[in-house]
């Protein structure tokens, strides 16, 4: 999707501008175009450099350093001195069972939650787009409302709804003799998956629905004339046409899953056994803030960069896989 946008955008329209400007005003006009273009871009470019490029650069640089006590003795002593350690930080985490345990958790989480969420969102969008439903607006708004609840607040609400003392869900399940221990170590990951599913399904549904509703209805009519059933229309027309939107949604979900932070952090506040390194992002944060050892800029940067690389590999891998399947 990225490439199509860049191609379409860069190639189609603006190509006319230079030609026309050149015809009208030649050299000085062209210089003016260049200046104005960069001028409009400048405020964003400066902010982008300050908040994206420089931090990434500094972070890569820092990841080769580690704070070491200057005293040098067995118990260190003295101030922390930043010492160049080469790839030591990277080696440390690449061979750290805690890091990979966290990665394993988010991977397991993502491999279940992402398909579940995307398919539910697609299913709901298809149902809302079908001929059976007239009043779409109410459903659409209701499904989307959780997205207006900040992630950490959503996590707080659900954490209380899971509370063993008064869980309203267990109150209902109790009527049928059921009970779920939402905070049990082998269940808590799925309790968390429910939180993110609740928050983001409606958002994805809305994007799919928008894509579905932009499909011209003549296509369906033509298909019906040829005798296609409703199922055939869904599989042969609707699903292929929302593919681009789905690809983007899956990519963003993969990236979001790798950096899972709000939900486990809130759950950890009431379940300390989860530990400060339950997910890689929690590990990075707590390393930065001194809650884990080794701590500080260097090790935390190394975790961030490793995570970004893993997220990138997963995202590109998925994109290539999908392209191959098409």
């Amino acid at each position, binding site marked *: 999707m990225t490439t199509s*946008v860049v191609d379409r955008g860069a190639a189609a329209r603006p190509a006319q501008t230079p030609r*026309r400007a050149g015809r009208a005003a030649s050299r000085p006009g062209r210089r003016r*175009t260049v200046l104005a273009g960069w001028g409009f871009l400048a405020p964003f470019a400066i902010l982008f450099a300050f908040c*994206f490029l420089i931090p990434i650069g500094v972070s890569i640089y820092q990841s080769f350093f580690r704070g070491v006590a200057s005293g040098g003795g067995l118990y260190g002593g003295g101030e922390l001195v930043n010492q160049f350690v080469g790839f030591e930080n990277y080696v440390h985490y690449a061979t750290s069972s805690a890091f990979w345990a966290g990665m394993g958790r988010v991977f397991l989480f993502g491999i279940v939650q992402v398909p579940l969420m995307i398919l539910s969102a697609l299913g709901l969008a298809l149902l809302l787009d079908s001929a059976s439903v007239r009043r779409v607006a109410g459903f659409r708004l209701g499904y989307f409302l959780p997205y207006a609840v*900040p992630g950490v607040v*959503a996590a707080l*609400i*659900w954490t209380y709804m899971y509370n063993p003392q008064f869980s309203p869900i267990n109150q209902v399940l109790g009527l049928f003799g059921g009970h779920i221990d939402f905070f049990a170590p082998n269940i808590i990951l799925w309790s968390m998956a429910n939180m993110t599913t609740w928050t983001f399904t*409606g958002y994805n549904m809305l994007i799919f629905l928008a894509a579905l509703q932009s499909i011209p209805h003549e296509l369906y009519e033509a298909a019906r004339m040829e005798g296609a059933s409703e199922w055939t229309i869904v599989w042969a027309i609707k699903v292929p046409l929302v593919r681009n939107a789905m690809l983007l949604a899956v990519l963003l979900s993969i990236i979001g899953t790798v950096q899972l932070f709000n939900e486990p952090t809130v759950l950890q506040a*009431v379940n300390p056994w989860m530990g400060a390194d339950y997910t890689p992002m929690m590990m990075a944060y707590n390393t930065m803030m001194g809650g884990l050892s080794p701590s500080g800029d260097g090790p935390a940067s190394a975790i961030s960069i490793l995570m970004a690389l893993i997220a990138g590999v997963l995202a590109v891998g998925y994109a290539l896989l999908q392209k191959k399947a098409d």
Partner: protein
Amino acid sequence: MMSRKLATLPDGTTYRPSDGGLPRSLRPKRVVTVVTIVVLVVALLYFLAPIYWLVITSTKSNGDIVTSNGWWFAANNTVQNYVELMGWTQQMFWRWVANSVFYSATAGVVGTLVSVAAGYGLAKFAFPGRGAVQVVIMAGLLLPIALLTIPLYVVFHAIGLTNTIWAVIIPSCVSPFGVFLGRVYAQSSVPDEIIESARLDGAGEIRIFFGIVLKLLAPAMVTIFLFIFVATWNNFLLPLMMLNSPELKPVTLGLYGMMSYFNPQYGAVLQGALLGVVPLIILFLGLQKQWQSGLAAGAVKG
């Protein structure tokens, strides 16, 4: 579901207009319709139940939360919960909400202007380096923002900006998605002819931008503003890292702090959650048209 209204033709005859849409032969079967509606309603209950529960429970005392039916009201404890909420936050609660409004609105306004200007620049001017800039921005769109937060903290800490409002506002102003949307809109809704004729009239580029282009891009600007506003309001990791003075906290951070109290008054925390979410929900309800069309543009044109 079907409308039974009659319509009248100019000559006085009445008829029943078709229900729009489909001829009878193509209408879905009754069973299909019923199943569809049931599935949609069950899904609706899932999405709305926690919000309903939040409203109910924010009115209860701790004792009632444990003993009463979770899905219905018990004795009204709203006022005590409110007093408790204010006491705990040392009267800071509304300050936190105001902080959230301030951070989100400032970042929204500045970020929108910056994004639209950049989008316009990319769409309407040819300059060397434009292709590269677009690739970098698209990469920024897919970059995990949370991963950027640690590097950002490192830089902001080094220049002494942590624990200031700038640490939250400046990063929140940068929205690659805003630029992307601004560019898409500028391409489709700012005609070259208008810009050129303004130039022939002797208007400068800045005047053209503020006088003409911004008006044409107004719908895009509402969408971008909302997007940045919501992202800033919902951000948790960035303020968690950057801020530690209670006076600077946004409401998300304040509420998280209350979670870790030992044996909290649940009703009070939940009331805080509810009050912290209400402004956003109002914003979403009030600007439905804008964000829906904005998301649609992102989905379709993307």
